[in-house]
């Protein structure tokens, strides 16, 4: 019996030795199954995560949120800010061997602007027309000066797909995308894995360290981490803050963390339908009292082991446009009570809606308990995600815990949430002065002047407090020590150029 046991163990060990794949494959665990693999259609973080291997963009962002060259080597704004000319990298080919040139750029921008279900329309809206000036020179004419354009082009709106493939395979393009990134698409088994292999014709192929990358869909973060610890995966994204100690304690693993662009915030319905007719919806002083009643650091500590970044602004501190003069107020229950009393009330009722995820549920409960001490009777209303989204879009809530993925430039976030016609302004806050400032800022090419404008905007939205920003999630990757060259960028995507095996 004992001998059989030993033999069995030996067989298992030999067999599991075979399991570890060859050194040139990078196995990555991702939390969600990506949606359509077409930059024009994609709407998920996990999709962008895979695109970082497949599709290069005109420009990229650096860890300090500066715009850096990728497929475009240089660019130049016209004096009036109404056009921008890109000098394109030469000798770049798509994965099907066709050339990347000005005509391809024109095709891509027009495709994303005209495809009926394109999700990039808003990001590219200011582009009126595209002119191919030469094979390596392309000019975008804008309807109005729009500085954030470059930041928009550093994400999916700037990803270039092969015009040939996109035309020929129109309907099925997402099933086998063809781009100009370091890796080319090999196979996708839905809800299982996406395999990409090194594209030998990549313009920067010398710096591509792995022959193959496989993205495995592993939804549970604890399991994802276990598989990295077991050597089954080389890297896992979005490790839960509660698991970070395990990563730090494991001698075989390295924790890669970085500040993110995302923000979690508590939105109040101030003008959308009947649900806006609440004390908090009507009175900004009460909202300020609410802010004083909660302690962001406690939320961060209790819900996220203190691993996120407690903050009072929609724009993360990593952004050059962050307003460091506007600090988060310290918790002051006495003052909050006094403000409630001054408004002629003793108890203020409010119902907070949120998606029933573990993180949001914890945040909501902590807020409920802290705000209760100051005199806010918080009712909690957890909702299944798709239902929650519909109610959110229709302004059918008194208060809502929103999670916004953030953008490299402050413009899309602030305009979306605070301009009168903003796409995320579902709580219907409107201030014409703020609109004017945001409009001016998107046309202001001078960084210092632009920063001053955003400081003004920050003052306005933090006084009105139609939304109380709570914290910025940080990014956490757990990787085997054998994976070298990982650089964290605020968009939380794993860039593969420069990443390779180390001993």
């Amino acid at each position, binding site marked *: 019996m004992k001998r059989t046991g030993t033999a069995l163990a030996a067989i298992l060990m030999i067999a599991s030795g075979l399991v570890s794949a060859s050194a040139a494959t990078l196995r990555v665990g991702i939390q969600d*199954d990506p949606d359509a693999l077409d930059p024009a259609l994609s709407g998920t973080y996990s999709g962008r995560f895979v695109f970082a291997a497949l599709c290069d963009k005109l420009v990229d962002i650096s860890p300090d949120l500066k715009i850096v060259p990728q497929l475009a080597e240089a660019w130049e704004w016209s004096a009036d800010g109404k056009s921008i000319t890109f000098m394109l990298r030469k000798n770049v080919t798509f994965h099907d061997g066709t050339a990347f040139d000005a005509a391809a750029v024109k095709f891509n921008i027009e495709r994303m602007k005209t495809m009926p279900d*394109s999700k990039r329309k808003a990001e590219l809206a200011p582009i009126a027309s595209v002119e191919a000036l030469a094979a390596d020179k392309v000019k975008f004419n804008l309807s109005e000066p729009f500085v954030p354009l470059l930041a928009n082009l550093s994400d999916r709106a700037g990803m270039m797909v092969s015009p040939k493939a996109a035309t020929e395979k129109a309907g099925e393009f997402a099933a086998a995308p063809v781009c100009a990134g370091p890796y080319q698409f090999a196979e996708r*088994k839905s809800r299982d894995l996406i395999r990409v292999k090194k594209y030998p014709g990549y313009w920067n192929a010398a710096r591509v360290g792995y022959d193959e990358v496989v993205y495995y869909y592993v939804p549970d973060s604890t399991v994802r981490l276990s598989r990295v610890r077991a050597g089954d995966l080389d890297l896992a994204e979005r490790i839960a803050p509660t698991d970070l100690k395990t990563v730090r304690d494991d001698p075989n693993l390295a924790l890669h963390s970085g500040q993110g662009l995302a923000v979690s915030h508590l939105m109040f319905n101030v003008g959308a339908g009947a649900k806006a007719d609440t004390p908090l919806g009507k009175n900004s002083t009460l909202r300020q009292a609410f802010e004083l009643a909660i302690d962001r650091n406690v939320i961060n500590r209790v819900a996220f082991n203190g691993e996120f970044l407690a903050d009072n602004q929609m724009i993360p501190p990593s952004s050059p446009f962050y307003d460091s003069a506007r600090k988060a107020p310290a918790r002051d229950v006495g003052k909050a009570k006094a403000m409630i009393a001054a408004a002629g009330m003793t108890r203020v009722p409010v119902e907070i809606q949120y998606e029933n995820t573990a993180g949001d549920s914890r945040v909501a409960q902590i807020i409920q308990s802290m705000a209760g001490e100051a005199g806010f009777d918080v009712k909690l209303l957890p909702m*299944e*995600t*798709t239902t929650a989204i*519909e109610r959110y879009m229709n302004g059918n809530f008194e208060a809502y815990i929103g999670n916004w993925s953030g953008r490299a430039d402050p413009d899309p976030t602030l305009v979306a949430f605070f301009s009168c016609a903003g796409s995320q302004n579902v709580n219907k806050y409107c201030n014409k002065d703020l609109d004017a400032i945001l409009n001016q800022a998107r046309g202001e090419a001078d960084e210092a002047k632009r920063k001053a404008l955003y400081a003004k905007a920050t003052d306005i939205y933090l006084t009105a407090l139609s939304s109380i920003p709570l914290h910025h999630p940080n990014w956490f990757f757990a990787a085997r020590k054998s994976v070298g060259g990982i650089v964290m960028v605020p968009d939380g995507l794993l860039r593969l150029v420069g990443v390779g095996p180390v001993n």
Partner: protein
Amino acid sequence: MKTLLLRRLAVLLPTLLLVSMMVFGLLKLLPGDPALALAGEERNPEVVEYLRQKYRFNDPIPVQYAVWLKALVHGDFGTSVRTRLPIGTMLAEKLPVTVELAILSMLVALLVGLPIGIFAALGRGTPFDYGASLFGLAGLSIPHFWLGIMLILLFSVNLGWLPAGGFVPPSESVGRNLLSMLMPSLVLGTGTAAIMMRHVRSAMIEAMKQDYVRTARAKGVRESTIVLRHALPNALIPVVTLGTLQFGELLAGAVLTEQVFSIPGFGKMVVDGVFSRDYAVVQAVVLCTAAVFLLMSLIADVAYVLLNPRLRS
């Protein structure tokens, strides 16, 4: 026998149709707008409207159902609205995985549940019997996800013997395929084994009380022959039915086990389909599962008749 088969087969199609109608109706009752769920973070109203048109979310439900059914009759399961991948291919990828997991789990359940059940019945009241009851209770009450994570920690993280998850197709390597399926089928199998064990035990106790057992004993037949030749075949009749239905249930997918071990089977596919309102995906999986389940219950009925001579006339 033949009439039974024909009768059951004749009911199969209408039942499937009814199931698909019910699922379709229930899905449409879910709150939440699928177009909003699909339109990305910015939810451009133009795009939302286009998606509503494209996927006919605005049409009356019977019309949507008819469109779906018409395509299905032509062998087209449709396209996943979320990933834009053909659902037929998705099913073809998932079905073998789910079937393999179900077979292996059933194997575990039989290898564990049957002998323990028999010996517990024979040694009623002995420590072994109590141990078996304890196992039965534990097998039924230990949550799969917990057991799964514990096994991963022990065998993958600490001992490094087994892969922590993921699925290796047998076409790539049979050995690695079995290794990757070992822990999932153990986890799923123990639950089923516990149910099996309890049924075998009580059926066996019942059988051992029968007159024919007493007669056999009186004839001086050996105890092992009594158990194996006389009592067991009779005790197994209800167990076969149970086993077939349990197998059908295993085929419906095991959401938590699949999630813990990242097995790309039916379970998680249908749950995520519901959450993202990917109606066509849910419909396809449910239809597949219902068909398999009906088939299994048909097999159970046939086996019941075959095993029980009294029903054969």
